[in-house]
């Protein structure tokens, strides 16, 4: 829905230079050759320099790991979210799904053991993905509304299961807190591996290519022989699966499953993805862009904390960043069509 509208919108704005002039052979215009990611790298460096000057605690290895650890949970979820947005889809239910999977894990583990808890969490994530996927691809509900619905439903369900309490979980600290390599926390390693997997998936597989095509023009994608419905369904499943993984890490880090664990997570994820250059109109975006988007948010939060800025301001900063990123996306869309 989003992507189809976006596509026609872009088409309608076709100006004389693009719509009329026959392009002459030659090199791409200079501006078009600057990688999309360049402004983000500049922003990240600027933030880094700023905080390094302002705080003596910013520029060291441990704090660097802190930044990455803070980005890990959102990052593991942002990878499939990038895939979805590239295909013109959204998943707002990720925060709620994380809470649900965590609570399910702790609840089942308490009764049937850790292994059963892990399986339950993964099945829970896949279930949410399947529900979202079915509603979007089979029933044809707008993904924004679909996942807004599942967002509300599953956080509620989590609170029903936990009876509103935080469920403690012992003996499951390894995934969230161990540091197997160069003192790097395992969640960070998992996060970077997930990013690597999605990098390959989106760049070098037919599946990844297909997602870009669907985002660029879903009707044309079907007419080019892509099984659009099935592919989108799989993407929603992937989103659910990686949310479950993130939930396991989250529970392990906290040693408990909180019914507030995933609150507002969808905002962080979408902000990072959009900041990373994925177009809301679909068809454009990269996982490397998302990685930098995540780092910008994490550095900003980390720096503001080090400067002892009231944590409520972090929410303000994150919201502002999202709006700036979306505005930038609009401007870029206009510019891309103009050249």
């Amino acid at each position, binding site marked *: 829905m989003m992507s189809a509208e976006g596509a026609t919108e*872009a*088409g309608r704005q076709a100006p004389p*230079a693009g719509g009329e*002039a*026959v*392009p002459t052979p030659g090199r*791409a215009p200079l501006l078009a050759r600057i990688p999309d990611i360049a402004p983000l790298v500049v922003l990240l460096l600027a933030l880094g320099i700023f905080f390094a000057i302002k705080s003596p605690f910013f520029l060291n290895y441990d704090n660097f790991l802190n930044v990455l650890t803070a980005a890990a949970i959102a990052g593991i979820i942002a990878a499939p979210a990038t895939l979805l947005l590239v295909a013109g889809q959204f998943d707002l239910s990720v925060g709620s799904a994380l809470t649900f999977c965590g609570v399910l894990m702790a609840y089942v583990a308490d009764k049937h053991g850790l292994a059963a808890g892990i399986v339950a969490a993964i099945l829970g994530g896949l279930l949410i993905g399947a529900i979202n996927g079915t509603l979007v691809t089979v029933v044809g509900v707008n993904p924004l509304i679909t996942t807004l619905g599942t967002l509300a439903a599953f956080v509620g369900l989590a609170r029903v299961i936990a009876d509103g309490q935080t469920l403690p979980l012992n003996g499951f600290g390894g995934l969230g807190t161990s540091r197997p390599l160069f003192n790097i926390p395992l969640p960070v390693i998992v996060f970077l591996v997930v990013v690597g997997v999605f990098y390959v998936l989106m760049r070098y597989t*037919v599946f990844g290519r297909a997602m870009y095509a669907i985002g660029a023009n879903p009707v044309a994608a079907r007419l080019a022989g892509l*099984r659009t419905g099935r592919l989108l369904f799989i993407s929603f499943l992937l989103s659910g699966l990686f949310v479950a993984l993130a939930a396991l890490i989250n529970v392990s880090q906290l040693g408990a499953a909180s019914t507030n664990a995933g609150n507002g997570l969808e905002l962080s994820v979408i902000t990072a993805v959009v900041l990373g250059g994925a177009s809301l109109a679909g*068809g454009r975006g990269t996982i490397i862009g998302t990685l930098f988007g995540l780092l910008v948010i994490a550095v900003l939060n980390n720096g503001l904390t080090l400067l002892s800025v009231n944590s409520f301001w972090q929410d303000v900063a994150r919201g502002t960043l999202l709006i700036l990123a979306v505005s930038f996306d609009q401007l870029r869309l206009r510019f891309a069509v103009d050249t």
Partner: protein
Amino acid sequence: MSDTPFQLSARGIRKGFGGVEVLHGVDLDATGGSVLALLGENGAGKSTLVKIIAGDYQPDDGLLTIAGAQRTSLTPPQARDLGIRMIFQELADAPTLTVAENISLGRWPTRRGLVSWRAVKRRAAEVVEQLGVDLDLDAPVGSLSVGERQIVEIARALSDRARCLVLDEPTAALSSQEAQRLFTFVRRLRDQGVALIYITHRLDEVREIADRVVVLRDGNVALEADTGSVTREQMVSAMVGRSLGEVRRPVDVHQPPVDATPALRFDGAALAGEFDGVALDVHGGEVVALYGKLGSGIAEVAECAFGVRRLSAGRMELDGKAMSFRQPWDAIAAGVGFLPADRQREGAFMVRSVAENLAAPSWGPLSRRGFLTADREATAYRRWHKELNIRSRDDPRQLLATLSGGNQQKVLLGRWLERQSKVLVLVEPTRGVDVGARQEIYRAIRALAASGVAVLVATSDYEEVVQLADRALVMGRGRVVAELADQEITTQRLTQEVGG
């Protein structure tokens, strides 16, 4: 209308975008009570020129004299005040509102600050009366045909004191019946003293509707003349800068052997509400045209051949085997390729690269265990880039949106070359493609057929049928009404068979 006739004259209009000048000092005159046809290929500068007249763009140089007022540039409100209205190709109406509401759209009459629905209705009734058209004022505009919606837009302009009406390719999406109706309105408006500027690709329309014609080429006026004193050939050569000659039959007409199994066959095929009892054969090596107006069922037959829709009755065979495609991928796997009518909406991935656009249906065969590198796509693109004479940078990563319409179409045609389709179904393959590129696309299609591919072309353009087809089926109201062999395919015969 007022007493002195409306007069618009543009002198020495220049306009550039990003350092590239697209209008090099153009003159244009439009007079109340006459129709001016503005001709030119894509990129000739037609749209830029009329957008300057409508105030959407400011010229870099030149003078506009409109109804006595001299201006070096206009803003959109100023142009409105001077009575200039544009009707764009793409409808700019509000589909969920009624005809009456649309006619007053944006300037609803009010009474004490509240919208007076009675006045809305009265104004709509007046203008509809003036146009002499029969429209249900309470019907939502979305429920009307494209032609009727266009008339609603004209009615809106008219009720808003239009003195100069610019129509941008208004018949592009109309059946010839609807087009005729539109011409009636255009003439009526002309007789009421409105100045009309009529932008078109179609040369036969110029003769039919316009008093004067201006041909733009590469940002210059290439020809200005009374339509009575100019030949079709003169207009064509002014447009393309060289003579293209008559609409000619292909010289290599293919005659399939009598007992050959057709590559594609329909027998008693029907789609409820769209077509019925359709029988057709297309052999390898042959181009068969399915000619008819919009709504005659040609596009629907084509869609059934590709699994976009499913036949509700009858048989479809591929190489003698009964087939029933549930979805396009079934058809592609069986060796069928498809070029949709609306390139922008149904064919192109505008924000993706030319290589991806060309390779998309072949991703499966090009990949190894689901893995695919950009190199293999680029190789596939380079394979067809020269062959199809796609004019672009030699860069497989170039975005499709940066190519001209004709070259985009060649990329989409290349999809099925790469996929090695045995049956190709093309719907309106040269819609929105300029004259020069059109010939190249015809050549590519003929060459494809010569290599053994069976080609079915569904088109509402009879010149296309004459230039392209070995055989032609004419459809009307969902049925095949005539089948024409080689020598019978003439523009006269086609227009005659399809009916008035």
